[in-house]
């Protein structure tokens, strides 16, 4: 056979790739979230598993529907919709009714992401946006205290942030850091088991699936701000409490780190993360809301393009083809 009849593949350099893909990142985040979700389901029973299933499934269906309506290629394969569904479920109480879950994933996937042009184009973390709207519309569904009326726990079944907000540090003495880490607190399905969240977070950071700068500085922001408040007035709960209650850990490892809505340069990531932590504690301590993470994340999402401009200049002129 003459060599000239062979059809070689022609493409542009580079001819190697490191093998990473959006799908594999999503897969890792999904599997990793199980460290927090499985204990959550264990704690809250079948209802929790139901919420998770409905959330992930409906998120995927919403995206499929949009793909279909907008005649774009099917994008659910990248796993991003599933991740959004999972994030949302992790934030929800186990008692969330199915219709609220489905509405939540609609808000997150359709309003939070697809309207802006799909993956990578969302200015806000879609799950956070969805959850924030849900909470505005149906606040009673997300009253964590009411949500656990039918459960019998061997720990204080009161949302710790409510206690600290109304009665101060004194009231939450019984929540030791160890207790909190072990998930002996009520809250979102995937938001309370601190040990699991930390394992998950460390894994994601080491593998480079999230940008560690953001997570670490988010936590540092929470820590420093809580310490400052405590120093101002001992009424406020200390850093240990703020770090391991509410959505702090899930916020640091899963929410603030969402790719499209966060910066990529080093210094900006530090500022972005720290600001998130700072706002979280400020809202908790002197704002009107019980937990500040969601709003803090939305605010830093908003300023991220601005923050990301702080960077060294590019090198002088490189190669041109002249």
């Amino acid at each position, binding site marked *: 056979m003459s060599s*000239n009849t062979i059809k070689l593949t*022609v493409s542009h350099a*580079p001819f190697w790739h*490191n093998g990473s893909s959006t799908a594999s*990142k999503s897969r890792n985040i999904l599997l990793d979230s199980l460290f927090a979700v499985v204990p959550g389901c264990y704690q809250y029973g079948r209802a929790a598993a139901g919420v998770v299933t409905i959330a992930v499934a409906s998120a995927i269906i919403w995206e499929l529907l949009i793909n279909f309506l907008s005649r774009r290629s099917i994008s659910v394969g990248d796993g991003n919709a599933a991740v959004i569904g999972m994030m949302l479920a992790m934030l929800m109480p186990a008692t969330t009714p199915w219709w609220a879950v489905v509405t939540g994933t609609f808000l997150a996937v359709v309003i939070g992401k697809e309207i802006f042009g799909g993956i990578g184009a969302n200015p806000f973390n879609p799950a956070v946006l969805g959850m924030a709207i849900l909470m505005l519309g149906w606040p009673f569904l997300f009253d964590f205290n009411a949500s656990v009326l039918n459960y019998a726990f061997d720990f204080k079944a009161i949302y710790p942030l409510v206690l600290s907000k109304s009665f101060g540090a004194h009231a939450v003495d019984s929540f030791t850091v160890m207790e909190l880490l072990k998930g002996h607190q009520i809250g979102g399905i995937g938001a309370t088991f601190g040990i699991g969240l930390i394992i998950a977070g460390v894994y994601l950071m*080491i*593998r480079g699936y999230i940008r560690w700068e953001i997570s670490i500085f988010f936590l540092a922001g929470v820590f420093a701000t809580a310490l400052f408040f405590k120093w101002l007035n001992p009424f406020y709960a200390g850093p240990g409490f703020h770090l391991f209650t509410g959505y702090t850990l899930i916020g640091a490892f899963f929410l603030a780190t969402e790719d499209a809505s966060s910066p990529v340069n080093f210094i900006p990531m530090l500022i972005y993360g720290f600001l998130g932590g700072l706002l979280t504690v400020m809202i908790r301590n002197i704002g009107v809301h019980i937990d500040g993470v969601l709003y803090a994340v939305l605010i830093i999402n908003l300023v991220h393009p601005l923050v990301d401009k702080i*960077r060294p200049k590019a090198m002088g002129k*490189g190669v041109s083809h002249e």
Partner: protein
Amino acid sequence: MIKRAFFGILKPKLHYKQIDEAPAQPTSVRASQKITLYIDDPDQNTEASVLKVGDPVKSGQKIALTAKADSSYLLASRSGRISNIALFVGIFGKKFTAVTIDMDADAAQIMDDVFKSASQTPSLENARAMLAGLPGKPDFNVFLSGGHPVKTIAVLGADSDLLSITRQYFVKNNIISIKTGIDLLRKITGIHNVILIVPHHLAQVAGSSGATVKTVDSEYPSAHPHLIRQHILSSEAPISGAGVAFFSAEAVSAIGAAFNTGKPPLEKLLSFISKDGTRRLVSVPIGTSAQDILNEFNEKIKDGDQLIVGGPLTGISVYASDYPVLPDTDTLMVLSKKKIVEREESACVNCGECVRVCPSGIQVNLLVRCLEARKFQEASDRYDLFSCIECGFCSYVCESRIPVFQHINLAKYTLEHMKEAEKNNV
């Protein structure tokens, strides 16, 4: 393919291949029947060419397109007869004139001795007129062009793409001829500041070259001329532009040999990488078809495979296996169909990997959005398109598998073309 590291917390790294302690001797591969020379021909002189089909050619003869002194040319590596002259358009419209020479049947080569007498009196003119077609493709025009006068000669003993060991081989095994070349370059250019740039492990042998030795690290793309200029030569030359003339170690060694013996070397050394990843050093006459090399090593290619001239990050993939070895072909590699990277026109997810690896500090994540929207001018004005040194690293790490590098090259090409057109219209 080198996989993403398990520990992604650190910046992704790629390392240049280091030559073995005792590299195997290069295999000599013969050209079968014909050689083809791709001569740079931006103005398309094919028609006006002084060359004619049927012209006899001697080995070592200068094959120039026009009679003008600044006409581009190559050297015929074998004697024979011109059998075809054609325009060849390469990647992004780069134009060549392809001159095919049917080789004389008998092994005895008829040598051209025009250079022989010129070599008695080494001069920059002689070198420019006769040696630009040497293996390694030395560029003597930099000494004559206006703008910044050249103050420094940088000899590259480090390879530019990942798998090649071609230049390292010269430093390791031919340091004497590199020294001769350096001395000659000094003599003909009057420039005494010569710097030999090598990977760390070759620093010692490089010492005997008589040039100042500087080392680059093994991390891609530190051996890129722009980065060398930026990081290593910044004290020697203004960063802004010229001031430095770059030569590959192979070219310098060839210049030395040419003046010493009166015969320009016509064999190109290259690193050949087969489908299974085996690397061999090969020495072939310039113009030899890649197919001849494949045949020599019994490397079968099939439909859908890729033949790459140049390395895995910056090379070009060619349409046909009869693509010839050119004076600057340091690497030839074959990639089997199943190892070819699938690229997608997907959206950037803002993972930031490209920004972490870009040696030029470009915000590739923003640049790529601009390029995907085909806003090339904005890409150049606001997102540093022209700071790109074309290392390809961004595409290598892109999580969305966007052909970022291709977008960049296309944008540069389009903008330059527009500028060119405007100039011509005025």
